[in-house]
């Protein structure tokens, strides 16, 4: 099984924020992937979609799913991130009031993306945009020490 689809995301359209992630979640469910995989992929996708809507002019989310993993790539034409290390810190945020009204912008987006993915890559150029790649494994290929929540979930189940 292999599935690929790319979605465009409109910057500043807060009303539509999350539409792409809901659609992707539905696709992953229909592909019959494990519930935990679908959920984690949907979360990282949603956080990256919120970021595109919040900061960029426009962006794209590319989904790739196969038997081994789900890959979400989010690419935007936006302001870029001058200091990625700082931006990755929980609590650091440059969000506007509009973003905060929605219940986001508390500086947790990037760390949530990292928390729920098995593999996380980010690169950014100021004035050009940001690229994030996240991979979520389908199977319990590894219990990653950096993902305590996921590990706990699996132990409980």
């Amino acid at each position: 099984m292999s599935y690929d689809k790319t979605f465009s995301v409109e910057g500043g359209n807060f009303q539509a924020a999350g539409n792409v992630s809901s659609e992707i979640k539905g696709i992953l469910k229909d592909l019959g992937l494990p519930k935990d995989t679908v959920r984690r992929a949907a979360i990282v996708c949603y956080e990256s979609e919120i970021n595109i809507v919040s900061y960029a002019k426009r962006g794209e989310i590319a989904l790739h799913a196969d038997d081994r993993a789900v890959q979400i790539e989010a690419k935007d034409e936006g302001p870029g991130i001058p200091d990625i290390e700082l931006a990755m810190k929980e609590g650091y945020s440059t969000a506007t009031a509009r973003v905060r009204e929605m219940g986001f912008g508390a500086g947790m987006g990037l760390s949530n993306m990292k928390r729920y993915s098995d593999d996380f890559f980010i690169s950014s150029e100021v004035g050009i945009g940001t690229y994030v790649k996240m991979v979520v494994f389908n199977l319990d290929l590894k219990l990653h020490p950096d993902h305590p929540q996921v590990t706990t979930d699996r132990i409980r189940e």
Partner: protein
Amino acid sequence: MVHGQTANAQEDDVTLKDVKDILDAEILVGQDQLGKEIKTAFSADLMSDVLAFAKPDSLLLTGLTNPQVVRTADILDISAIIMVRGKRPSEETVKLAEQLKIPILSTKYILFETSGRLHRSGIVGCIEKVRSEQ
């Protein structure tokens, strides 16, 4: 339910209908889902915290009313949304919840009272504590 369970086990069996009664709440979406069993809940006004910590099939107690609350609930497989402090969802929020079949209840109790009353009825937090590194 397993046969031969005690009265205690039945007491633990809290449904969305019970939640409605406990909170003297109004059902705005999901009248047909009152039979849902509820075991855990998470309270927050910050959707990023909900995404970080909430678990599937939990209730979401919040004071936010925008459509992103419903989106977040959908992404996380939240069983129902309780809007506290008498908050009412916007029209777009209701529409989205109807489309995604996620119940919304509105209660006049404040978040602290809402959480306390539900906890007393046997519903527990979907996690107890965050890990020290968080």
